[in-house]
């Protein structure tokens, strides 16, 4: 490999890795806890825990009875077990915003990566249906693999 090619590959690698932040060069931490995985994938894929910060998960788990317009509440024991797992397996904000974001699709890097056109394409495509349906395009999404973009 020539130096130029290596430089190009490195630059490209950095550019692709940025959106998913720091330690996720290769992989975003997936949900590996069986209960969390089962409950969080009932209506959508189990979004990798590494896609949100601890304070965001905390907020999500505190508002399950109105979860993006649906009641997703669980019994108290399951709620607490899942909350603890998500919080303990994600990185906290050093300075959390007053209202930690809950929608992955509203995060700045997500919007930059997908662009408004893709939001529309996802919504109107029969096979996708929503920008929330990561797996329609990223087959390894639930395992934290997003390199196929």
């Amino acid at each position: 490999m020539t130096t130029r090619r290596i430089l190009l590959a490195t630059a490209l690698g950095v550019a692709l890795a940025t959106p998913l932040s720091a330690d996720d060069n290769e992989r975003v931490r997936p949900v590996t806890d069986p209960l969390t995985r089962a409950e969080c994938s009932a209506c959508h894929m189990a979004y990798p825990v590494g896609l949100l910060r601890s304070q965001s998960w905390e907020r999500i788990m505190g508002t399950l009875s109105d979860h993006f317009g649906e009641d997703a509440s669980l019994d108290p024991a399951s709620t607490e077990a899942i909350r603890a797992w998500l919080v303990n397996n994600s990185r906290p904000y050093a300075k959390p915003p007053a209202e930690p974001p809950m929608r992955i699709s509203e995060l700045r890097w997500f919007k930059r990566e997908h662009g408004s056109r893709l939001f529309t394409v996802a919504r109107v495509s029969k096979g996708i249906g929503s920008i929330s349906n990561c797996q329609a395009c990223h087959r390894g999404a639930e395992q934290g693999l997003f390199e196929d973009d």
Partner: protein
Amino acid sequence: MKIPSKPTILALAIILATPLAANPARDAIINALKQQAGVSSFSAEEGKALFLATHSGGKPETPSCTTCHGTNLKAGGKTRAGKPIEPMAVSVNPQRYTDPAKVEKWFRRNCNSVLGRECTPLEKGNILAYLSSL
């Protein structure tokens, strides 16, 4: 044409006479609801009306059961996040309504989402009667 043997005819007769949806676990769930509702039978017609209606008491994103389950209940539905939902009709999905905890969990969540309140035992029974009749 070969005439079927007597046991074959008998077996066939039993299969045809058994209601399509019969399942001990589902029957237990429906019987418990009958007791709670204080009725001896449920109305599939009432269940159908409730299931297909557009409601206004719940969350605006989910005005009807059909928002996610669709109107062809022998086919699958789709969640708002795009995940497929198994068909609701017992005739094509015999595993439906055989796990009491699962039935209660989803009635609680979905009635809250669609109606803005929990369903009564009568409403749950009527809906199960409808979905078992399809």
